[in-house]
């Protein structure tokens, strides 16, 4: 399977990555090769195989529901580009 330049542009946008004109071709070829590998894997009959969601069979560890209120907001806001009245400020988003 081969990707178009448009596919690459769309993926870059979804991932919020800025790429140059030259890079589009570079990624188009590289990603197309990855899809080639996937095509190859798709040739294997997996109808009787359970899907593998994780490479190891470990189970999720659960934690007790005990809150820890020790949160140093001011310290965390010091490394934010901008904060005011306890809020993190970001460029305006309009729905």
């Amino acid at each position: 399977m081969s990707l178009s330049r448009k596919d690459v542009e769309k993926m870059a946008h979804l991932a919020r990555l800025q790429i140059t004109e030259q890079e589009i071709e570079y990624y188009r070829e590289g990603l197309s090769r990855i899809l080639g590998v996937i095509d190859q894997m798709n040739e294997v009959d997996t109808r009787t195989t359970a899907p593998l969601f994780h490479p190891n069979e470990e189970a999720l560890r659960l934690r007790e529901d005990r809150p820890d209120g020790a949160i140093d907001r001011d310290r965390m806001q010091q490394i934010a580009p901008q904060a005011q009245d306890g809020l993190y400020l970001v460029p305006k988003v309009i729905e």
Partner: protein
Amino acid sequence: MDWETVVGLEVHVQLLTASKAFSDAPARYGAAPNTQANVVDLAMPGVLPVMNREAVRMAAMFGAAIGARVNPRSVFARKNYFYPDLPKGYQISQYELPVVEHGTLTIDGDGAERSIRILRAHLEEDAGKSLHEDFHGMTGIDLNRAGIPLLEIVSQPDLRSPKEAVAYLKKLHTLVRYLRICDGNMQEGSFRCDANVSVRPRGQDTLGTRTEVKNINSFRFVERAIEYEVARQIDLIEGGGKVVQETRLYDSVKDETRPMRSKEEANDYRYFPDPDLPPLVLTQEFIDEAARALPELPDQKRQRFMRDYGLTAYDAGVLTASEETAAYFERVCEYAGAEPKLAANWVTGALGAYLNRDGLEIESSRISAEALAGLLRRIGDQTISGKIAKEVFEAMWASGKDADSVIDLRGLRQITDSGPIVAAIDAVFAAHPKQLEQYRTGQEKLFGFFVGQVMKATQGKANPAEVNRLLKERLSS
């Protein structure tokens, strides 16, 4: 053409845990901005999510309560999108293997009970809040809500009218509150609803194109938003157009839905299993324990109220809509030894109206169950009539006094002795000789007039049955 409405609801229920789904930051509502957002909620580099056992237990309880399958193995996935109130750039959710699948919820449809299928309920985390007020042209972000555990409950498109959608939502609301897994506060956003709405010609099997209506944050708005959307779709199709699959926002002020400004790739979430979280594996013991922890459920309580108290399905439904109301009613019955029907009438009637008027929940009622029982006892032993009881109730509500104090203070004790009643009757006869004459010459409908006059003369305190009996006696003598 005759159109059929088809609705499925997606309900987001905030789980009542003390800490968040994947971090140990507190999950209380209303704290100062960002004081409950720790490094995990802020998506600092290198942090890892650790799942809250209590959130899982609550999901399993919900599954048991709707007769669903609680999956021994489920998987967390990343739902990817960029928005400032989602610092990681993805929401941890469940996609292919949710924790709960295939349950049912029974609702009161038009005249008959209807079983609504629930496709799935999955665990996920809430996002933060964006505040669009002016911060010098910037948007303020509060991440206290980010990471609070949510159970998203998805119904099949089994609902056939706006009313059924409301009935389903109310039933779900009642259930999660009984289970104590959610406080159900719609204003604060702990119980939120989106509706998938479509129409089709009646009799057609395939579904029409649906729209998703968001932002419906009260039971009333759910009904109105769906009504509007159904009418819009029918107009569109009958006018030769086509329904476009899209997300629409409900505007309760204008009472309309309108398309959300399309974020181009709104539905391109690129789900994939979260590599930070291995599969959630639940032992049979864990699942059984959650099922054993279920309280008496709304339907069971309702059946018991009908059976043990002889109430109608309607009364039992109203009284069991919240556990608190049901408990109040049972306490009144216990203390009053009263006729349950009478207790039900007072709880659903006067008490409900006063609570409503003052915007109070039954837990903060100005008349306790014990005090209302005291009032019902005085009706039962004929100290006061039902009519006077309303006045006593009002005074109790206003003053916080018990029934006996109000009755004594205001001299409202019912007159059952024949002496004073006969005296009042004679006085009324003396004052209205003309009516007495007319009655005696055959105008028997004046009987009611005399009853009214005697009641008035006794300030409503005379026992009505006694008045009737004695009046008949005097008039026929």
